[in-house]
């Protein structure tokens, strides 16, 4: 999902860099004020851990192998702000040390994988935790959120590519989303399995990672960033009103781009019929179906992995 240099136009680079700077800034502020000083080395080591974990390949099938992104794993283990910083550090090192992911588009990559990934994933994780309790609930919710974060980040990545005019949304979104719906299954499974393994051996590490409740302003800022990103990069294409995109483009003073986007948006008229005719609609449908399948799958995974809690009455997933 690392975007290389040369794929995004100036407008997208500026927008994503601004958004990811704001996200990393809020996370830094939060770590500086809320997290005790001993966490700084832990975040660095966790980043090295995510990097090392990404280098271990998992056998998938027929010679192919997948590896972890680690965004939800990091934010569940260390809290969302630390998760953002861990993923940012991983992406910066990948860019500067291994030329994996472009330099100018670092902002876009950080936004997709270090802001949308951990924060969107963590938001989903917390939502699911409202009705999934106990260790089993944690494993199931984290596995689900890891899948969702992968798909979200890929969708955002497709939106940025389409926004830049390099790739047609009708090609980019189905390609990216469908591939990452499959990759995300691996991500979710690995995240759930690793968390279950940690819960078996060192459960106190998981209890320590619960953030304090009073982080209102940071959450508002995070929510605002996520909403802005999704509105900016994804909604112009997901909505069936090409005019919306044009007016946004005109408002930003990019008439020339708007001309190009009209050529993107025009096939949408042909695909207006809701149903399987359009690859975008089919992908969205697959996404909803996939989310349900993943939810059931992660509940089963958690049930298989985590022994029922003996002291308290057993909690069951809905």
């Amino acid at each position, binding site marked *: 999902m690392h975007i290389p240099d*040369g794929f995004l136009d100036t407008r997208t680079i500026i927008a994503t860099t601004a958004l990811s700077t704001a996200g990393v800034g809020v996370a830094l502020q939060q770590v500086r004020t809320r997290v005790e000083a001993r966490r700084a080395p832990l975040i660095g080591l966790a980043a*090295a851990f995510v990097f090392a974990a990404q280098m271990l390949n998992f056998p998938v099938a027929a010679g192919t192998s997948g590896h972890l992104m680690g965004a939800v794993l990091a934010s569940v283990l260390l809290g969302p702000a630390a998760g953002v*910083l861990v993923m940012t550090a991983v992406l910066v090192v990948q860019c500067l040390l291994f030329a994996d992911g472009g330099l100018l588009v670092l902002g876009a990559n950080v936004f997709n994988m270090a802001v949308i990934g951990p924060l969107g994933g963590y938001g989903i994780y917390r939502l699911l935790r409202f009705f999934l309790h106990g260790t089993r609930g944690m494993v199931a919710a984290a596995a689900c959120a890891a899948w969702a974060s992968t798909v979200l980040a890929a969708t955002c990545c497709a939106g940025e590519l389409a926004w830049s005019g390099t790739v047609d949304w009708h090609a980019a979104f189905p390609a990216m989303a469908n591939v990452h719906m499959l990759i995300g299954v691996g991500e979710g499974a690995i995240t759930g399995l690793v968390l279950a393994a940690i819960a078996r051996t060192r459960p106190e590490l998981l209890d320590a990672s619960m953030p304090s409740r009073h982080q209102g302003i940071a959450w508002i800022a995070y929510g605002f960033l996520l909403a802005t990103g999704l509105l900016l990069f994804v909604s112009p294409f997901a909505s069936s009103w090409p005019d919306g995109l044009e007016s946004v483009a005109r408002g930003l003073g990019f008439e020339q781009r708007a001309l190009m986007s009209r050529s993107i948006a025009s096939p949408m008229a042909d695909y207006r019929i809701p149903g399987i005719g359009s690859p975008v609609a089919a992908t969205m449908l697959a996404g909803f179906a996939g989310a349900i399948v993943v939810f059931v799958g992660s509940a089963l995974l958690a049930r298989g992995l985590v022994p029922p809690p003996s002291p308290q009455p057993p909690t069951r997933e809905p």
Partner: protein
Amino acid sequence: MRHDFLDRYSRLHSPIHRLPAALKAGAAFVIVLGAATVPLPGVWFFAGATLLLPAVAAMSRIPWSFLLKRLLFLEPLVLGIAVLSLLRPDGLSLFAGIMARSTISLCTMILLSNTTPFADILALLRRAGAPRILITILALMYRYLFVLIDEAERMSRARLSRSPGISRLERWRSFTALLGQLFVRSTERAERIYAAMCARGWE
């Protein structure tokens, strides 16, 4: 340390390696910026870069096989996304443009990362005003990256030699248990590092 190979060549001695890091990073940034923004036929720019980059690579004395391997490793990722642009109405010229832009940028970044030690880049970032915590995190991450990769590989080798011929499901379970164990060890190491940092007067 076995994983030194990841950035082994960034500490060679050559005219390019001796240049100040700020100059190299600045030049790389200009080339990448140029590659991203030059209007598209851009024959002069791309011809110039195509002459300049191999010359720099030759002067840096990094083995060609290493540079080519890195390029061949990363180029498919570029190609994978660029192929999608072929579906656009003006696909072929767009595809060629994207490939030119990103290949030049990729070569530039490969050269920069292999001629400049990461510590120098971090010092540069610090002087440019990057937040102190972020620099600390990056420095620690870089310092322990190789240690943890080594540790992961040792654990993985030990696991493989203890349990040959297990099913795929079992392999996944033991791999993830290994990752969990690696995280536990990382946190323990972080505690020790923090204690050592405090003992040396950190903050």
